């Protein structure tokens, strides 16, 4: 015989509007073993909590049922309440009558009836609940940061400065990310490299940061506090321990590859460092461009290398790192605008994508900072087209947030570096940020022409060969305009990295419809994910500018710290166990477990479960044909009783 107390929450009107709460409490009091049943306006408030605590004492309750919101919101709150009142915290059951009832219907009859069914099931189950003991595990104190752009760099530095060891994994041969490609940053127009490279260098010098460039994560095992992450070191064909960064090899190399860093505007060598300030300042060989790998002979780099660092036999290597928390900061790609044929990207040489223009402005870029077209001439008229692929229901509905601002920056730099007329074709001008509106006003005064209308088409000029006509509707005057220009800049949608789905799979992250990683809560947990111990920062979550990215990186570092700062961590007691008498040794549990908790005991011929690894997800119990697996807190008896309670309605 158990003594159950049922507490029904009104949640203001959130629940009380659609469910007759007092009737529900009255109904509960008629159920078996229920000693006391009450309803109250806000059960999670202090008076509500005190009511539960005093009733536990007064009525000697040993099971508590709270009919309220989702357990995700307040299960921990009520566990604390009953624990403080002297009960085992696993003896509280939450019945979700808000998200699963009152918020999904307007029908009071239906709502009340479903709430009764859920409560009936909960009472049946609560009678069979057993007290459980929590377990504690050691926490690995290190953190892994994935992505070496500004978000990853910032998060790594913050964490390293607290004394924690950080593994910074970057798939390219240098850290820096997109920010390293920019010339100036809006709205202050300070030089991107000048503010980024000191941070890159700080990463290199920091004793607590292990930089893993040219690396990719291939496997993730374990769980919060104890992740075992396998990282692939891609073959560089250069032994970085021996290399002294003299770069003689890069001078002699006859190979020609496409410079990713310069957005394909120029060629680079096959053995290369991506850019002069790259960190680490040591080259790698691009297999696809290397004469030796293509034709079987050359090895010029090997001949000039005094350190004997070139190693054509090098293979990919794998290492496993143990960390307590992970920050994913994998950044973005720009949408490929070639399929949008109306803009002529890839067809007309005068059409550029935003990142290419960043490189044209940059003094370390292909034109040494001069703005010239592909034929070497200086443009006379330039059109900047906003929202290419973004804010576009045919492509990406989201706003990429930064294009308005960098387009203004482009306009300013064009004005500074050329005598061209600059036109902005925009839908809405979005400048919500510190100093952004002021920057916009400043650019207006710089004689930049603003045309409120999305660029509709870029066509070849019939009159002036080599020039282009930008067609658009000026929505202020209502006139259709055709503007002759000789340079068009497209501001494409920011989209998740092409391999973001793989990262999502590795770390069990969910993604939104575009592929951006989903946060746990859009407002209150923007950096956490549904996978505990995995945090996100920067554009991989959604488009944002550098200040927001850096702020998120700092936030994610703090979140990660809340985990790794502890020595021990409490684990849910709701794990699974095997009843060896029933185990039929089919090993299905081993096959389905995402955490690697079950293993086969050859000697006994049965499966067993390593409880330290078990997260209590219940998959093993559901695939066990012999029902030999008992999921604590969700035992067959408990679940069947709950179903029985539900079915009575």
């Amino acid at each position, binding site marked *: 015989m158990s003594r159950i107390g049922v507490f029904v929450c009104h949640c203001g009107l959130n629940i009380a509007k659609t469910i007759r709460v007092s009737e529900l409490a009255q109904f509960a009091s008629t159920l078996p073993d229920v000693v006391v049943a009450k309803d109250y306006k806000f059960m999670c408030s202090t008076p509500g909590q005190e009511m539960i605590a005093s009733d536990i004492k007064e009525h000697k309750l040993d099971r508590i049922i709270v009919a309220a919101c989702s357990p995700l919101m307040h299960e921990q709150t009520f566990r604390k309440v009953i624990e403080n009142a002297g009960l085992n915290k696993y003896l509280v059951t939450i019945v979700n009558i808000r998200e699963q009832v009152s918020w999904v219907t307007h029908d009071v009859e239906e709502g009340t009836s479903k709430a009764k069914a859920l409560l009936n099931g909960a009472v049946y189950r609560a009678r069979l609940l057993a007290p459980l003991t929590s377990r504690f595990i050691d926490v690995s104190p290190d953190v892994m940061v994935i992505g070496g752009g500004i978000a990853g760099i910032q998060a790594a530095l913050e964490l390293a400065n607290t004394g924690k060891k950080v593994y910074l994994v970057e798939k390219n041969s240098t850290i820096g990310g997109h920010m390293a490609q920019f010339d100036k940053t809006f709205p202050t127009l300070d030089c991107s490299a000048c503010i980024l490279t000191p941070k890159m260098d700080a990463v290199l010098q920091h004793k607590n940061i292990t930089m893993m460039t040219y690396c990719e994560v291939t496997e993730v095992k374990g769980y919060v506090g104890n992740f075992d992450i396998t990282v692939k070191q891609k073959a560089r064909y250069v032994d970085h321990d021996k290399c002294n960064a003299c770069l003689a090899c890069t001078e002699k190399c006859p190979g020609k590859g496409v410079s990713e860093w310069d957005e394909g505007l120029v060629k680079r060598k096959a053995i290369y460092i991506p850019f002069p300030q790259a960190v680490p300042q040591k080259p790698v060989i691009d297999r696809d461009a290397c004469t030796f790998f293509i034709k079987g002979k050359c090895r010029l780099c090997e001949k000039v290398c005094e350190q004997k660092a070139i190693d054509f036999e090098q293979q990919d290597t794998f290492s496993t790192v143990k960390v307590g928390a992970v920050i994913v900061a994998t950044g973005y790609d720009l949408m490929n605008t070639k399929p949008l044929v109306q803009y002529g990207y890839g067809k007309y040489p005068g059409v550029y994508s935003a990142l290419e223009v960043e490189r044209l402005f940059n003094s370390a870029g292909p034109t040494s900072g001069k703005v010239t077209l592909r034929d070497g001439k200086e443009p006379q008229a330039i059109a900047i087209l906003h929202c290419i692929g973004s804010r576009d229901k045919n492509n990406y509905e989201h706003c990429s947030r930064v294009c308005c601002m960098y387009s203004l920056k482009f306009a300013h730099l064009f004005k500074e570096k050329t005598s061209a007329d600059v036109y902005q074709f925009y839908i809405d001008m979005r400048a919500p940020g510190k100093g952004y509106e002021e920057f916009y006003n400043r650019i207006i005064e710089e004689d930049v022409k603003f045309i409120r209308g999305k660029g509709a088409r870029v066509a070849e000029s019939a009159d002036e060969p080599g020039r282009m006509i930008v067609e658009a509707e000026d929505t202020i005057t209502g006139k259709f305009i055709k503007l002759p220009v000789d340079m068009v800049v497209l501001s494409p949608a920011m989209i998740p990295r092409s391999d973001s789905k793989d990262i999502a*799979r590795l770390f069990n992250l969910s993604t939104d419809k575009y592929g951006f990683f989903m946060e746990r809560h859009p407002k209150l947990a923007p950096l956490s994910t549904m996978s505990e111990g995995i945090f996100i920062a920067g554009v991989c979550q959604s488009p944002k500018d550098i200040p927001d990215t850096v702020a998120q990186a700092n936030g994610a570092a703090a979140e990660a710290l809340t985990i790794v700062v502890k020595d021990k961590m409490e684990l849910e007691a709701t794990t699974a166990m095997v009843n060896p008498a*029933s185990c039929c040794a089919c090993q299905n549990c081993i*096959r389905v477990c995402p955490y690697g908790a079950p293993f086969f005991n050859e000697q006994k011929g049965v499966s067993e479960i390593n409880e330290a690894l078990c997260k209590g997800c219940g998959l093993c119990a559901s695939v066990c044909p*012999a029902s030999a697996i008992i999921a604590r807190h969700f035992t067959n008896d408990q679940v069947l009783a709950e179903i029985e309670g539900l079915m009575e309605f």
Partner: protein
Amino acid sequence: MSINFKQIEDKLKTEAKKLLEGGKVSIVLAYGKGYDEKHPMPYVARKMSDVENMVFNEFCTANMARYLVRYPRGTKIAIAVKPADSRAVIQLIQEEKIKREDLVILGIPVYGMKNFKTGETIDSKTTCGRYNPVIYDTLLGEEVHGQPVVSPYDVLAEYEKMDKDARWAFWKKELDRCIRCYACRKACPMCYCDPCFIDQNKPKWGEKSPESHGNLMYHLTRFHHLAGRCVDCGECSRACPVDIPLYLFHKKVAKECEEMFGQAAGMKIEDKPALVNFRVDDSDKILE
């Protein structure tokens, strides 16, 4: 060309002797004499003298893979397998119940087996309809060629014409006749749980005496447990004393699994059991 059963029997005996004599295996799973020619029995030869009791004729339908899991892990076993039986062996290897290296597989290419109860010839209607074993070490006879290949799922045509309600009524009627002798479970090579869920008391998953609900619980759960695992040997249906066409449901589920996951049960050792293996490109149809 037809199957020379006598020749297969002789070869089986020769191989069995050779294997037992050389100590390569400690037992040979095959068929032995019954009380008459129509009732050969599953037979375990442990010593040379046992071999003389072995037989092989068109009534040797039992799937000997059923007995593989009875012996301690690591026991060296030789097993005589017909085409569908060989698939059961592969499925058991996939499920890590047995190891390939512990087995000597004596393959029997065969067709024209007969149902001992009715005398009818067994074909793709109740089995997978193959003529040659999928896996073997020694073939006791020549591979069968030139026989018409019939899809094992052709027999479903009639069944699939029924709508949801008609199917429910059909199974309700058929399963109501079940006397819960569990012969299907005993004959099945993939039913190796001990105790079976239906025999458990805490919780009690279903009524144990023959009555409608318990029968449904037992059979529907068993169908489900065999999804993606049933090798379509048809032994459950032949073992059934009240002739419930269990093969229909198994074939239907096997067909769905094959369409959904692109693999049939027991065809390749390297395959993973379809229902407990996650692949990124798995069909989502199962969720619909």
